């Protein structure tokens, strides 16, 4: 079992490092200087002009939403890092510990929050770009599978909670 855990830890580290490097590369390619341009524009803009419809505001909104998407991707990677904590608990022989139950719930929360927020940001992006936003088409996207996965982690947390009680009861059976 310990060998399997070690292999899983190595795989998890590999996935985490790959995800972080992809995210960092995307951020590097993203032009953050646009924010500075927006700040300059905000200082010199004509106050009488309608703010929401101006080209700069729309462009800035686009970049702000893109930055938001980066944040949620980082949050998802943070969620993945909990797998390492679970594997560490398993390695120590604490299969049905309170910590594992807590980690499963956290992972479930993070997966669901990520999907909901990315859906909202995608809707806003579509609204800014004046393109059509088809909710059902968005639901077909791969990332939305994280909602059932998140729910599965909540169910797993409940199963582990029951298993912990059973284990405790078994330990107190003489």
């Amino acid at each position, binding site marked *: 079992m310990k060998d399997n855990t070690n292999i899983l830890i190595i795989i998890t580290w590999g996935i985490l490092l790959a995800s972080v490097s992809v995210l960092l590369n995307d951020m590097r390619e993203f032009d953050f200087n646009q924010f500075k341009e927006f700040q300059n524009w905000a200082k010199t803009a004509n106050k009488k002009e309608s703010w929401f419809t101006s080209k700069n505001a729309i462009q800035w909104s686009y970049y702000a939403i893109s930055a938001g998407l980066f944040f949620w991707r980082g949050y998802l990677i943070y969620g993945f890092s909990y797998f390492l904590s679970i594997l560490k608990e398993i390695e120590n022989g604490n299969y049905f510990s309170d910590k594992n139950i807590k980690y499963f719930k956290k992972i479930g929360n993070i997966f669901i929050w990520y999907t909901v927020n990315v859906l909202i940001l995608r809707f806003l992006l579509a609204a800014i770009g004046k393109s059509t936003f088809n909710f059902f088409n968005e639901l077909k996207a791969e990332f939305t599978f994280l909602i059932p996965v998140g729910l599965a982690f909540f169910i797993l947390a409940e199963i582990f909670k029951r298993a912990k009680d059973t284990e405790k009861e078994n330990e107190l059976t*003489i």
Partner: protein
Amino acid sequence: MSIIINLDVVLAKRKMRSNELAEIIDITPANLSILKSGKAKAIRFSTLEAICKALDCQPADILEYVED
């Protein structure tokens, strides 16, 4: 709990020590302590049988029901 364990009383009557009984019935002294203190959730028939055999007594001598 309304089930009282009178193992201490039977042990005293037989002039036997807890560790000695634990060794005879092949359970750890820690588990016997859990049983004696009433913290145990359940007792296996095999354990009960071993205790009765070792102490030459009936289950009723060890277990007693007291209404809450």
